[in-house]
């Protein structure tokens, strides 16, 4: 492993030459090119499994998967801290705001020099999120980061969120994504970004605000209709009075404000709570995270993300039991969902992020991510931009019916029309090509869809493009484009 000192040295090299890095990025020269290895067809199930635990399988991920098998591959991914992620880390090393404290972020957001302004922190966080999903070798970890970012959704366009979310992303989501659910809720409840987003900074003794209390039960833990009442919401809101955010010294840090805390007795979900300041809500949080409804709710959502829109009930039951037995150990729960569930996986419609990422990853594309921003906006899944606290929808129907930007993206990508973005279809074909058009088309479809098309379908596409007057080279390009644009590629 690289020492921190070595890393910093490399990172400073990257920074120093960032301005010159237009075509052969320094981090790439330092960390090596994206590996290109030959690929073979995968079974439908294996291809599907691999695309659930990654943002779209790269050729070297396919090779590794074929070599060690599903179970070992998942174990390797779960042990994410052992995966060397140098290239990705180096690429992010120029993003200074990612590691800043709230106080500092607020300060630089008001500067208008040294390359900083109001847009710096949100832009870096969005770009970093994209680059991690694209380049990180810790794919399952990044998939879980995305999952929890939806579960504990925060909308960056509200007040101070544009810089507080950077801290939440680092200290809540990324810190605990494959840790323990209780710690995750605990961190989120102490996250200034969450306090601001759900108005708990306005929750005071003299006038309680129910917003966070409700969503903590409805969306973060128990789930709607799991037994709590309007009265429970109001009582929990009273417990949470005073959970707040510092406004001056160490601005943006969490603070418990004793003076606005409601000191009366409370009763939440039948539990009588004696006046004890910050401990009251902490006591409720402990009760919520250990509640069977929470186990079931979280496991249902995980199964929906990894397995199917309507996952098998039995799978949810056994995962929920593991959740309770392990006190919310996320890796243990994931093992159950993936090992016992993937055999029942049904196709999921790719959400926009997944569509873009799978295309870029499968084609070994290089990009700084900036050109993709516009596409995320037009497809409706810009990072941290979902206004309501339920997070981006995770069911197929929500995302169907907006094909046009997907077609536009595939057309523009293959023609190299996206700024600072280049696919590597040719280099990929170079390792496998026989020089025969039909074989190359088979290679492309195997790369993008797992296995080649039936002969008839393949020849049909080739004919249609040729009839429209394409040369062999154009034919390959257009076919790659239309495979990416095709109905089959929209599912994973």
């Amino acid at each position, binding site marked *: 492993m690289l020492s921190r000192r070595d890393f910093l040295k490399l990172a400073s090299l990257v920074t120093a030459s960032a301005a010159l890095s237009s075509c052969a990025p320094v981090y790439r020269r330092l960390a090596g090119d994206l590996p290109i290895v030959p690929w073979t067809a995968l079974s439908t199930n294996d291809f599907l499994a691999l695309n659930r635990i990654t943002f779209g399988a790269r050729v070297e991920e396919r090779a590794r998967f074929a070599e060690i098998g599903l179970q070992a591959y998942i174990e390797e991914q779960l042990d994410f801290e052992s995966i060397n992620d140098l290239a990705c880390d180096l690429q992010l090393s120029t993003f200074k705001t990612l590691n800043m404290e709230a106080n500092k972020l607020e300060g630089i957001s008001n500067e208008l020099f040294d390359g900083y302004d109001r847009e710096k922190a949100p832009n870096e966080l969005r770009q970093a999120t994209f680059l991690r999903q694209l380049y990180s070798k810790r794919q399952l970890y990044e998939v879980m980061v995305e999952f929890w970012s939806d579960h504990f959704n925060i909308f960056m366009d509200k007040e101070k969120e544009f810089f507080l979310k950077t801290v939440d992303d680092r200290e809540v989501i990324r810190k605990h994504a494959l840790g323990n659910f209780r710690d995750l809720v605990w961190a989120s409840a102490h996250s200034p970004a969450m306090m601001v987003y759900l108005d708990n900074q*306005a929750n005071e003794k003299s006038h309680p*605000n*129910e917003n966070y209390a409700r969503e903590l039960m409805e969306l973060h833990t128990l789930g709607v209709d799991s037994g709590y009442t309007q009265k429970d919401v109001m009582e929990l809101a009273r417990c949470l009075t005073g959970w707040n955010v510092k406004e001056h010294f160490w601005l943006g840090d969490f603070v418990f404000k004793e003076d606005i805390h409601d000191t009366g007795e409370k009763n939440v979900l039948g539990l009588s709570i004696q006046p004890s300041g910050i401990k009251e809500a902490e006591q409720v949080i402990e009760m919520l995270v250990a509640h069977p409804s929470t186990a079931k709710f979280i496991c249902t959502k995980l199964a929906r993300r990894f397995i199917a829109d309507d996952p098998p009930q039995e799978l949810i039951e056994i995962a929920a039991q593991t959740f309770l037995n392990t006190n919310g150990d996320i890796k243990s729960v994931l093992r159950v969902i993936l090992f016992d569930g993937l055999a029942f996986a049904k*196709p999921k419609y790719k959400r926009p992020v997944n569509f873009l990422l799978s295309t870029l990853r499968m084609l070994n594309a290089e990009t700084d991510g900036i050109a993709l921003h516009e596409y995320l906006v037009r497809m409706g899944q810009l990072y941290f931009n979902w206004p*309501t606290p339920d997070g981006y929808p995770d069911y197929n129907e929500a995302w*169907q019916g907006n*094909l*046009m930007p997907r077609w536009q993206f595939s057309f523009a990508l293959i023609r190299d029309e996206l700024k600072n973005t280049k696919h590597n279809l040719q280099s990929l074909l170079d390792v496998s090509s026989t020089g025969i058009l039909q074989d190359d088309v088979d290679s492309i479809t195997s790369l993008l869809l797992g296995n080649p098309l039936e002969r008839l379908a393949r020849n049909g596409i080739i004919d249609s493009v040729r009839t429209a007057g394409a040369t062999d080279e154009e034919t390959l390009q257009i076919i790659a484009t239309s495979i990416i644009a095709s109905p089959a590629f929209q599912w994973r």
Partner: protein
Amino acid sequence: MLTQTWLPRLSFAPVNTAPRGDTLVVVFLRGAADVLNMVVPHGEDAYYQLRPSLGIARPDDSKKKKEERVLDLDGFFGFHPNMSPLLEAWQSEQLAIIHACGAPDESRSHFKAMELMERGVDDERGPASGWIGRHLATLNTGNSSPLRAVGMGTRPQRSLSGNVPVSALRSIADFHLGGDPRALQQMRASLETVYANDILGQETLSIMDTLQKLDPTNYQSPITNYPDTEFGLALKQTAMLIKAEVGLEVSAIDLGGWDTHFAQGSASGLMPNLMKDLAEGLAAFHADMADHMNQLTAVTMSEFGRRASENGSLGTDHGHGSMMMVLGGNVDGGKVHGQWPGLAEGQLIGPGDLAVTTDYRDVLSEILTKRLNNPATNEIFPEYQPVIRNVLK
């Protein structure tokens, strides 16, 4: 296989055949709009007691500046000052208001309430499709346009879901593939092939053709004051599609941001800005569509209302009863419909919320039967017996 066997096969056999009726525009105010500050019951003393800071001053309250007072509508209700762009539609009797309107659900959860309302059902049971989706599926208007129903924005709304394909459309101007004519022709041929058995893809290709004939950059409207917002854009695109006669029957539009727990503003501020967007947008649309008003009905709705009393953060928490507006040439307008349940103690329900005296499905059913020629309300709103409230002529 480019069209996988597990892709849903779409087929439907509408129960009714009728010529198409009005174009329906459904505006959903997401986040539970505080309707008590939009159409203010200024005749209620309780309103002012419950909202000492947020309440909008009575029309004759000389202690407040005129632009901070309610605009009286009928002696009891009045518009928030930022709703003033809608006065013209109100005075021309093309705008009706149904107050204390909403759904029976009392979860006070945005997500549950929105889902149930968009599905048009009482609880989790019942069809998963949306009420507009079932409207389209139960009425054969002989209209095969791919633009029959459009969700304005990046994703089709839940209310549109069902077995008639719908499209999301954010901007007509963006709806082209680009590229040089040669590459475009090849791409087009290839898309035709890979989408040969896929209805959504076929529709998208067909929309592309249809929209190519429009020229959005040169759209001439006598009205140029659509607000420069996503909502204004959505209404403007809707107007263009209607005028271009491309077969639009339903346009669904969202306007979000109404979850105002904190510092919502009284005469001005956060929520008044949203009202301004809403009112200016609808007023521009009303004026732009003046010649089409006889074949047009627009309706606004929200998942529930907000607590009658203000909270301590100068905002309002989740409540119950809401309000709907119906705009169109055949509306019994210039009237506040519905039975007003009152805001006094004993009249509020739950933790202190406006009661619901008109089910939202009554209003929608009347629009469906009277203006959209669809009598199948028992399928669109299963297990619900609508009461016709005569909101329409």
